[in-house]
């Protein structure tokens, strides 16, 4: 039996209307305790209104060594970026 608690990834929503954002990770015996720990570790300075916890081992990540094949091909495809349009000022920030 492993004596180390499992690792959890913590996501916090800063204010209503914003997305939950990854803030870090911590150890906890289960999801409920992970929420309590997240409250104590990551919201000490009034950072959040909502907490999500996800078991770290439930996350499937891309491999750093695949970075080239995965991402570089899009560098050459400027036509995918809508930079050829003039945006009227009235539209504001997009």
């Amino acid at each position, binding site marked *: 039996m492993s004596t180390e*608690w499992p690792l959890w990834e913590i996501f916090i929503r800063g204010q209503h209307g914003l997305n939950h954002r990854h803030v870090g990770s911590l*150890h*906890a015996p289960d999801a*409920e*305790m992970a929420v*309590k720990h997240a409250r104590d570790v990551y919201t*000490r300075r009034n950072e959040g209104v909502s907490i999500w916890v996800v078991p770290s081992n439930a996350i499937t990540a891309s491999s750093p060594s695949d970075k080239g094949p995965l991402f570089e091909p899009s560098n050459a495809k400027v036509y995918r970026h809508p930079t050829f349009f003039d945006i009227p000022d009235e539209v504001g920030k997009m």
Partner: protein
Amino acid sequence: MSVALDLDVALFEGLCRLGDSTLVLGHRVSEWCGHAPVLEEDIALANVALDLIGQTQMWLGLAAEVEGKGRDADALAFRRDVWDFRNLLLVERPNGDFGQTLMRQFLFDAWHQPMLKALEGSGDPRIAAIAAKAGREVAYHLERSADLVIRLGDGTPESHARMQSALDRLWPYTGEMMMSDDTDRALADAGIMAAPDSIRPQWNALVAEVLSEATLKAPDHSFMHKGGKQGTHSEHLGHMLATMQWLQRAYPDATW
């Protein structure tokens, strides 16, 4: 005139009982800082300690104001001796192991939360305001300590044994929280503070529920220590104050 004066004396006493209990428990819990079993618990304990010290500033600040002798919360915390402290004996118990620290916290929180709820209805708006603010913090303290007592009580044979032994050890210090003396009764009659014995039914119900879920058994014996609220303390408080007060004692009015 003399009635009003007596009530102020009782109020100062009552506020010191609240503020000294949060101060001493806050300091005890802070002793874990950097020593807790895991980082997450270390931070959680430090948060609880800081909440309690913050509440102390409010209670002792008001006590000093009521006293009207030019003292402030710091003077009360750092320049009084053991016999002037009015905290409950329970909170001056040494930390022991993590189980004892948690059990002490739970037994106190189970009293603290309903007491603050009752104080929200105080006829003194200053007390009602402090109780409302502190109540939100203490609701979380109680949720956390009750949850951990259940998890560790109903945990491994080792954690169960440690929690049961912590309960046996601390139980005789719980009665004092719910004993009312003349000061308590004077404040209750004036509608300023809830009488400690009025908290008994809620404390009993909450503690029974959590202990049963935690598969722990309260000791049968009914002997209860008392005296902390009147200034008669165990030998542990003096040692704690020596650590807590030495800087202000050695360098009075030192500033950061």
